[in-house]
């Protein structure tokens, strides 16, 4: 077999060309991935609007955004965690713990004192503590994040169950809290404004701050990040704290939406959020992805669920149809990246 040996100059030139080509491809991919997801979303919106004109009404748009709000807030934390190559499964437990804490510390139908600002601060602090515990166990005890946060899910649920006790379902006595959650400001639900502002802050932080760049660097190659002097452990712990705090906030807002809670207020949110983040294009292996993708992933799932109902698909077939459309949409979106995806075992 014939071999060709390149001189150092030739080799350097080839490397330079390869890097430039790879860089161009990478830039192209980073632009085309969200665009193709946006395209899939637009196609779904057009189809559902044709099937039922009410789908495109302002009322339904507000409904969709209202339902997307909590997954978006949780999705911010989930995206940060996944970007460092970890996973946070504690979402529903943290929401339950903070939701029950919030309602019991507010004026509620069970009686008891309204603790004012503490009714907000204590549950948020609880979310932070649960996130901190996950982060410490993950980084210091070197237990996989999957296992740590699975455990923390049940710790959160346990806290909620103990706090809830066996008394009657507690409802918020202060209607203003429930009314605020449902109020439309400048055309959008208040809860969605909260989600949108947090999403913008997170996107800017990820793109333009050292914190964001460090997150991506750790996800790309933790060893290199560590050897370059980055405080990897501290950074990971902070990310789990952020995720815990955001799940905690979602628990409080869920209670405000419902006007009360039991300890299952977080049920179902984990399995909306994690798939949405991944469908958006954030790699489970870490280092690639972003907030815009999470936004698109969550909207894709929300549009699908809402659209199928408005299109009149029988509930008996809804899961099957939803899954089939999702698979087609993901294949369409990911087709151009199939080479890269192939290496993700």
């Amino acid at each position, binding site marked *: 077999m014939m071999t060709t040996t390149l001189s150092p100059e030739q080799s350097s030139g080839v490397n330079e060309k390869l890097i430039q080509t790879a860089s161009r491809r990478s830039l192209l991919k980073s632009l085309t991935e969200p665009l193709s997801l946006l395209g899939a979303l637009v196609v779904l919106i057009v189809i559902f609007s044709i099937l039922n004109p009410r789908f495109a009404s302002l009322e339904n748009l507000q409904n969709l955004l209202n*339902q997307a709000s909590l997954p978006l807030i949780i999705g911010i934390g989930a995206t940060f965690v996944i970007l460092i190559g970890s996973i946070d499964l504690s979402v529903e437990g943290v929401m339950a713990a903070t939701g029950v804490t919030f309602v019991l510390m507010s004026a509620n139908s069970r009686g008891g004192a309204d603790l004012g600002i503490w009714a907000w601060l204590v549950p948020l602090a609880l979310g932070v503590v649960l996130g901190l515990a996950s982060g410490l166990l993950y980084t210091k005890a070197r237990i996989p994040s999957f296992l740590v946060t699975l455990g923390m899910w049940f710790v959160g649920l346990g806290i909620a169950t103990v706090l809830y006790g066996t008394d009657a379902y507690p409802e918020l006595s202060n209607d203003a809290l429930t009314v605020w959650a*449902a109020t439309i400001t400048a055309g959008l639900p208040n809860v969605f404004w909260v989600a949108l502002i947090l999403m913008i802050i997170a996107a800017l932080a990820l793109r333009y701050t050292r914190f964001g760049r460090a997150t991506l660097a750790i996800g790309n190659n933790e060893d290199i990040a560590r050897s370059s002097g980055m405080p990897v452990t501290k950074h990971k712990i902070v990310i789990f704290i952020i995720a815990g705090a955001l799940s905690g906030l979602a628990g409080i807002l869920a209670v405000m939406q419902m006007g009360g809670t039991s300890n299952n*207020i977080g049920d179902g949110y984990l399995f909306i959020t994690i798939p949405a983040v991944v469908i958006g294009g954030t790699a489970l292996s870490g280092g690639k992805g972003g907030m815009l993708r999470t936004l698109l992933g969550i909207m894709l799932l929300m549009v699908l669920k809402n659209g199928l*109902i408005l299109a009149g698909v029988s509930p008996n077939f809804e899961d099957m149809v939803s899954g089939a459309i999702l698979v087609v949409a993901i294949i369409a979106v990911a087709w151009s990246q199939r080479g890269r995806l192939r290496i993700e075992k």
Partner: protein
Amino acid sequence: MSLRKKLTLAVSTVAIAGLAGLAGCTSTAGDAGATAPLKKEDLVFVCSVINTTNPYFAANIEGCEVLGEKLGIPVEIVDAEGSSQVEISKIQAILAKGKKAVVFVNTVASSDAPVIVDSVKQAGGFVTIWWNKPDELNPADIGNNFVAFQKHSGIDSGKCTMNELGKAVGPDAGIIALPGVQDSTTSQTRVAGLKEELATNWPGIELLDTRYSNWDPQLAYQNSKDLIAKYGDQIKGVWTADDGMQIGAMQAFNEAGLLDKVKFVSDGLYPPTIDSILAGEGNNAIVGETFHRGYMASAIGLYTAYLAAIGEINPSELPAEKRDSMFAISCVTPANMEEFLKWDDDVAGWVDTLIANGPWDTAPVPLVAGGPEKIDPKYAQ
């Protein structure tokens, strides 16, 4: 029902049938499963509920505890945490402690019943199952240790609430329905009652949409928001399979500014529902409910099993309707609600009456029919 559950059910049913057959081969005819009466001091009450936060299940626990106190028997609570696996393993752990168990189980899923019944039988205990079991699992086929299966009629519940909704919204309105979990027999029978009542007495009312909401207020809230977006003010009435989901649905209609234009009916008469009716919330939005109580179900179930354990009754000699039983359910409206709330003010007094009258003849929930409850295919979901 998932494939796994179906397989578990099939294997368990075959295993139990096999054991029952073996027992039949080694005993004299007629006394299969019969055991000597147990001493009261050897007994422990086991009270298994799906979770401890739902008001109905919390009331189940209350009924067990009050009965235990009255009879001087310790009570062990099993919180299944919504999981069949947790439920079964906790019950088996208590059975392994050695005391003879008298068991009430509000099963998480129908398919749990054969496994639980088998475990209790092997341990020499006595069990009554409430609400969910497979139709083919018949107490009389298993023996005395499976004392009874008991429930309230879901079909009667659905018919009762739909009738009240029809009266409130008129003969030509559009309504939506939010059932519980799709493979729950309780939910299925309530939906069948709703459909039968619609077809029989309210043919002009259109059931616009049905969305399973899994007994979950949050999901009922989201489904209601989607259906409001789809049908808008075409929706004049909302039928939910339990009050927890009604809370979520009412919240969604309240946010849409429609609460005072829509009527609601449901099953359970939970405390928040009572408060809402008393306050006349949303222009008296709630127009119909059913009355049956968790503490009544658990006390009836546990007391039936207790009587079998101490030899007061011989299950094999009971008529079929006392082995597979349906107890009365009452239709409640805002107008007659007060007469039912008196029972909640004196649970201990009601349990005293139960002990005096026996499990099949205590108002307001006497035995009314035998099971199993059959759904007419015309009204299946």
